[in-house]
């Protein structure tokens, strides 16, 4: 008997997502293989965050399918998706402001999913957080808050980590530090989807790229093979 082809880790098919009457995504399809880093790029309002929120269960798609290792997941609410190994680092970090740094991390791990990430592993990854662990989360700098947001998502030991605009509002040198931590995370066997406005950063980090334009996939391909001209055509629609 021939082996059936192994289903991808994440398989998104023909996704239509609405905010009320406004349609934000039109038939978006996307696939992530185990251990892969995929970037989603696009201009403001192209639907990148909407796509991540739909995958994380925060938005229910009106049409289309989301499958995790072959199992349908498009009706699962966010708290169920975490249980199934999908964690989102939300845009703008969204830390719990009345919780300390350590409490933010602990709440990320409150489901107790087994895996490589624990409090001490996150502190190894971001040593500055250990020094600041007793401080209220809002007292940290933007870059440190982003580290908490990533650490908090890792604490749930996801198989798929969704990162929404990690570079938002951060100085370039801080962005470089944050992105430098990603190989160690992927090294633990995680798959990543990164949404990024900074195209150079996205192309350097990801193996495959999807470019969204006004809610549709305008371009898809290996990061190495995409030409600048093709990307800017897909990005700006010219």
């Amino acid at each position, binding site marked *: 008997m021939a082996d059936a082809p192994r289903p991808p880790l994440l398989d998104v098919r023909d996704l239509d997502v609405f905010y009320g009457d406004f349609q934000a995504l039109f038939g978006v399809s996307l696939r992530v293989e185990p251990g892969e880093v995929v970037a989603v790029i696009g201009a403001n309002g192209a639907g990148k965050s909407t796509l991540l929120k739909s995958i*994380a*269960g*925060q938005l229910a798609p009106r049409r289309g399918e989301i499958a995790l290792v072959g199992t349908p997941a498009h009706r699962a*609410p*966010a*708290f169920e998706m*975490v*249980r199934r190994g999908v*964690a*989102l680092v*939300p845009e703008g970090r*969204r830390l*719990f*402001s*009345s*919780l300390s740094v350590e*409490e933010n991390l*602990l*709440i*990320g791990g*409150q*489901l107790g999913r087994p895996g490589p990430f624990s409090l001490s592993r996150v502190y190894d990854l971001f040593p500055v957080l250990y020094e600041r662990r007793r401080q209220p989360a809002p007292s940290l700098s933007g870059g440190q808050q982003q580290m908490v947001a990533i650490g*908090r*998502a890792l604490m*749930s030991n996801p198989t798929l980590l969704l990162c929404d605009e990690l570079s938002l509002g951060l100085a370039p040198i801080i962005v470089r530090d944050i992105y430098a931590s990603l190989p160690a995370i992927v090294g633990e066997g995680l798959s990543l989807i990164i949404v990024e406005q900074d195209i150079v950063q996205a192309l350097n980090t990801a193996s495959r790229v999807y470019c969204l334009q006004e809610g549709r996939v305008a371009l898809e391909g290996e990061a190495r093979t995409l030409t600048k001209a093709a990307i800017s055509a897909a990005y700006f629609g010219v």
Partner: protein
Amino acid sequence: MQWANAIVQGVLIGGLYALFAAGLSLIFGVMRLVNIAHGDLIVLAAYLALVVTATLGLDPLTSLVVVVPAMAVIGYALQRLVLNRTLGDDLLPPLLVTFGLSVIIQNGLLELFSADSRKLQAGAIEVQTMEIVSGIWIGLLPLLQFVVAVAIIGGLQLLFYRSAFGRAFRATSDDPSVAELMGLDTRRVFALAMALSLAVVAIAGVFLAVRANFDPAIGPARLIYGFEAVIIGGLGSLWGTLAGGIILGVAQAIGAQIDPGWQVLAGHLVFLAILAVRPQGLFPKVQ
């Protein structure tokens, strides 16, 4: 000495007011729900204790073993089946629904138990007193109520700031949609918060019923005392709520000392004065 005595008694009843308030502020803190039926739920707990003491032959304090879990279950079900459906961006639906609930509870109790006032009999403990300094006598029961109130507020404080349970409450209070990303089912968290709130209500209700007469219509006044204690103490601070309850109790006792008719009025006046001078309360936690 009469004045010192009045103040001591005021402090002791302040513990009861803090218990009224603790459940109220817990619910507001976790889910921004103003529970208008809170006072009537206190009275419901008192009637529940009345039924339990009458049918099982337990004394009122032992009846807590039944009344506390029963009220917690009622709270969990109420939140899951009714109140969760009212929560959203609009603050009005939960306000209207809990107002309706208040009317339903009052009339339901009236139908079942009539308007006669009742009281729970706790036996000898009700009249036992001790002299703490010469001339000031305090009742064992009011003292017990105060100690229990302080212990419950302290317990809630520990639960909120030292346990995973409390961490989930605070995270949900900060940002429910991100709390869901942490794997927390916020509707379940809300139901657990309401269960905890009504467990505290159960204790407050039984103490109220042992201390004084009750009838189906006294709920709204307990709600007002609860609100006043929360506002005086400052939103989001449990120890502040205890302080608020004590200030209210002392103000009422001093008012009653001046003229028995001024008891309730004095409490309201102190509340208004604090609201005018320090609208954020004495020990605010949320900005």
